[in-house]
Structures are given as C-alpha cells and as structure tokens.
C-alpha cells in the first residue's frame, strides 16, 4: 500500500490540525508549560507506585515516556485524568486548573484526552457515531437529548475520518474493525474532543510494522497544535518519533533528554535498556 496515503492523502490534515484546539477558558499556558506534576506520590496497599514524581510537559511538545513494567506509567496517566487521586503532591493543567479537584468528565471537558492501552471504542456504534459521541461540545443530559449535527460539525467528522483513513468505513460498526483500525478510530475520537493535551498509552502494541509506521506519522502530525504524551514499550517506535524522552523507574523520573542521551545514561542502561530489547 502507498506509504502515508492515509495521512497525507488528497485531504490536507492541516485542516483538522490547524483548527483551534478546544481549550477551557480557564486554561492559562503562560510560561509555555501545559502540565505540571510536582512531588506527586501515591501508594496502593503500601506499594509506592509513584514516588515524588516531578514532570513538566511543554505546550505543543511530543514527549515519550518509557520505563519497565511497574514503573508507574499507567498510574501517572490515571492521576492526570482523575481516575486515581495521589496521596500528596500537586497537578496543574496550565496555570489555573487544579486537576486534583476536578472529576474525570470535567478534566476531559477542560481539554485532556486519553487513549487507553487496549483499543476501547464503542463497539455497537458505527465509526461515524463513535466520532460524533466524542465531539467537543455540551455533554450534559438535555443538550444531548436535543442534539442535531450542524454542517460544520459534520465537516469536522469528515475531516477526522479522512485523517485517520477510516472514511470508507464510516458506516461500519466499530466492533467489526481490525485492531489497527480501532486504534486509529480511538485517536480520531480524541481529535474530536479537540484536546490541548493528548495522553496516548501504548499506541502500537499488537500492530504490524506497516500500521506502526502510519501510527508514527499520525502521532507526530498531532503534536504542535497540542501537546502529546506517549507511553510506549516499543523502543523502535519511540526512537522513530521521539524528540524528548522521559524514563520512569519505580515511580520517579530516572532520566530525561533526547533518545541518544537517555540511551547513553548508565543508570538507564542498568535498569531498563540493558535488560530489554535494545
């Protein structure tokens, strides 16, 4: 198949990517930092999953987070999205939004999108309706009861369909998509939310090399207008997309820098790269 046909095809991805991301009016990113995690700790039954973690994500950057199993990568995502509350520390989205005092839907509405490790789409809905459900906008009971698609909204869905290469499958029930297509649909759903910060958990697990390349292109295309944080095990994939890498170990940051710097760091070699696939 044609390389890049899906993401740089006849339709210009810039249309969607250039669209202003929907940010909460309270989101203030002066100082260019969009996410602050400071001295965050959380333990489960005495096991310290996150240990005094400090992490800063810049506006528009693409950050990869790696680390051995149990390093606290998923827990970190859970904390940012409000699923897990830390025992101590602070987490701010921009200068003004304290994520620790917000519920999961509020955090999502404020502009943080999350892609789960397992592809998780609404299997009984069509591709089109999956994107429609994810679309930014009012999501409380009565507005959704009365919701009608406007022309502009329909255009937005069409653009994301083109971008993710799912245009021909718009009427297909999501449950019948292949693994890779589900992953792309889920990324498309995140785009519909127009988040300012995208958290992506292991996007290429279980993908073929071809699918992996396309996913890499998609993910790099997304950064810039929004910040993207990718948690990934696959080192080849990380090397192909990463500018800046953070290595987590036992719930804390072990090293941070370019892929080359990180790989040369003796501490990292010892705990992770030495024993792993590299």
């Amino acid at each position, binding site marked *: 198949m044609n390389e890049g046909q899906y993401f740089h095809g006849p339709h210009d991805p810039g249309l969607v990517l250039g669209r202003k991301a929907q940010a909460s009016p309270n989101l203030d990113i002066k100082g260019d930092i969009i996410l602050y995690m400071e001295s965050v700790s959380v333990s489960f039954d005495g096991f310290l999953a996150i240990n005094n973690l400090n992490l800063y994500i810049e506006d528009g950057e693409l950050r990869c987070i790696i680390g051995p199993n149990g390093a606290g990568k998923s827990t970190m995502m859970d904390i940012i999205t409000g699923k897990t509350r830390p025992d101590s520390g602070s987490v701010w989205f921009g200068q003004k939004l304290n994520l620790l005092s917000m519920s999961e839907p509020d955090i999502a509405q404020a502009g943080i999108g999350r892609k789960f490790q397992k592809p998780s789409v609404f299997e009984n*809905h069509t591709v089109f309706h999956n994107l*429609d459900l*994810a679309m930014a906008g009012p*999501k*409380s009971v009565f507005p959704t009861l009365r919701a009608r698609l406007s022309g502009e909204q329909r255009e937005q869905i069409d653009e994301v369909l083109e971008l993710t290469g799912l245009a021909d499958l718009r009427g297909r029930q999501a449950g019948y998509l292949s693994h890779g297509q589900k992953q792309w649909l889920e990324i498309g759903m995140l785009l519909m939310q127009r988040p300012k910060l995208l958290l992506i958990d292991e996007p290429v697990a279980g993908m073929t090399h071809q699918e992996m390349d396309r996913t890499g292109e998609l993910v790099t295309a997304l950064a810039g207008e929004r910040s993207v944080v990718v948690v990934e095990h696959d080192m080849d994939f990380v090397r192909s997309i990463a500018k800046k890498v953070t290595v987590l170990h036992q719930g804390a940051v072990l090293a941070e820098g370019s892929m080359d710097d990180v790989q040369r760091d003796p501490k990292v070699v010892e705990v992770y790269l030495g024993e792993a696939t590299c």
Partner: protein
Amino acid sequence: MQERERIFNRPSLQFLGLLGVVSAAVTAANLGLPEGSMLHVSTYAVTLLGKYLTFALLAVAVDLVWGYLGILSLGHGAFFALGGYAMGMYLMRQIGDRGVYGDPVLPDFMVFLNWKALPWFWFGFDHFSYALIMILLIPALLAFIFGWFAFSSRVTGVYLSIVTQALTYALMLAFFRNEMGFGGNNGLTDFKDLLGFNLHTDGMRISLFLASAAALAGGYLLCRVIVCSKLGRVCVAIRDAEDRARFIGYKVERVKVFVFTVSAILAGVAGALYVPQVGIINPGEFSPLNSIELVVWVAIGGRGTLLGAIIGALLVNYGKTYFTAALPEVWLFALGALFVLVTMFLPRGVAGLLKRKEAAS
C-alpha cells in the same frame, strides 16, 4: 449510511398501526356486537387485555434502563406499585360514604383501625389532578433519590441489582404494616368510581383499556425519542464501556439518574392504569418475585429493542393466564424453563428471531 435512526421507523409504525387497529376492533366488538355474537369480545377479555397492555408498558420501562443503559433493575415492580397505590388512594376517596362503615371521609380500613382523622399524606387525593401528579411524582422522586445515591457511589452490575431488590422488598414489608396507613396486607380495594363514573360498566372498562393502549403508545414513543437521540447513543456507550464514556466527558451518573427516573415514571403510569382494571392494590405487588418476573418478560422478548419487551410481556402473560387456569402447578416450571431456553438458544429474544428472519428474506 443512516446518521440518525428515525423515531417512526418501519417496525414502530407497524406496531402503532396494529395497536390502533386492535384497540378499535376490540372496542367495536365489545360495544357494537350483541353478547351472543361469534365475534363479541367479552368485557372480561377487554379488562384482561387492558391489564396486559399495562404490563407491556412496564416492560418497556424496564427495557429502557436494562436494554439501553445496562442497569438490571430487579425492583421496578416498586415503581409500578407506587403508581398503583397513588391511583388506589384516589379511588378510595371516591368511595365517599358508600363504604361498609359509611364514614364520609375515612376509608373503611381506617374506621376499622379506630382512626379518627385522615393521615396527612391522604390529603388531596380526593382530587383527580392531585392524584395524577402524585402518580408521576412519587415514583420519579424515589427513583431520583435512589438513583442519585446508587449511581454517584458507582454501584453497578450485580450489586446494583441486589440493592434494587432490597428496595422493593423493604417497601413491601413497610406497606404490610397497618400503621403505615395504606390498608396493610389487604391493601386498597372495593373501588366504585373513577372521575364520578362507575368503574364496573362496559364503557368504563373499554375506556380504561383504551387509556392503557394510549399510554403504551405514548410511553413507547417517549422511549423511542430518547433512544434515537444522541442521548440514546450515549446510553449504549455507557452500557458497553462506562469508563470510556466518562473520559470522553459524559457525566455518566446524571445520564443514569435521568433515564432511570423516566423509566420509573412510565412504570408508575402503568401501575396507575393497572389498579382500576384489576380492582385491588396490595403489598404483594412490591414482591421481589414480581420484579424478577418482569425482567424475564423482557429477556424473552429481546432486550434493547423496546418492541421485544412488549412482545415478551404479552406472550408471557397470555401464557400465564392460560397455564394458571389449565395446569396451575406447571406454570412456574414452564416460566423457568422458558427463561433458560431463551437465554441459551435465543440470546436476543423473540425480537432477535424476528430480525434474523427479516434479514434472511
């Protein structure tokens, strides 16, 4: 591709048409034809049909929360019974001084218990409009409060089912007590009039039957409006992947409370129409067994289709009427066997079978 499902899709139109035709035919055959005629429909049969229609509305209410939102309520009989009690209280006040004891205000059971005055919660029930509001309000209020606590503490799945079961059981025990002021285990009965018209005339029976048919059509359409809207798709999304829906930004608890409350109102209306037709309401209606049985109707008909719930309620209740007369000791076994067989061989119920036939042809 269909972007929105139409509220009046073909099966809906067929159902509404059929309901209209049958209602008109039954009315004509009951009032228009002499009793000896072959095609005469007896008033007994009319009342039986009216009762089935209220059960069908109740089943639609259960399907809305179970089939579309994944909430398996094993306590929906409680909302049905509460609507029934609200109607029963109005009918008791309508009796006036024609009771056995002839008290102009107090219902017989209160005189029997030596009560001197009407309890405060019986005030207003002499007005039909007040009773009508209570029929809608009481089940809605209970569902709202119960749902608010249960859903916001994220009680789901089998645990929620058990809590709903406990709810209806607790209400049953409460209503059994004489001191509650709802007639204890005898409940409310000996009704005479509704809106000043004698309940026992053919015309009244037909009116109640037609009101039940209209309520079923209205309730069905209300549910269609919900399930065809974006909110309906949000419900299915919550049913299939609750966490995902939450991370997309939907307030899952509020959606659940809203739909659960709508469903309780429909159940209450069904109960209110049921009571004048059967002529009695007692705490037995709160029995957990009733609530479980009505879930079986929906399962047999096919959940998540609304029409399936109606088919299931009509089929099972017709079967119940037939078997409890012909072979009374067999009925419960037959119902159990039916449930097991349908679960094993027709996981999508009778409606699923019909859909497959349609797809094949």
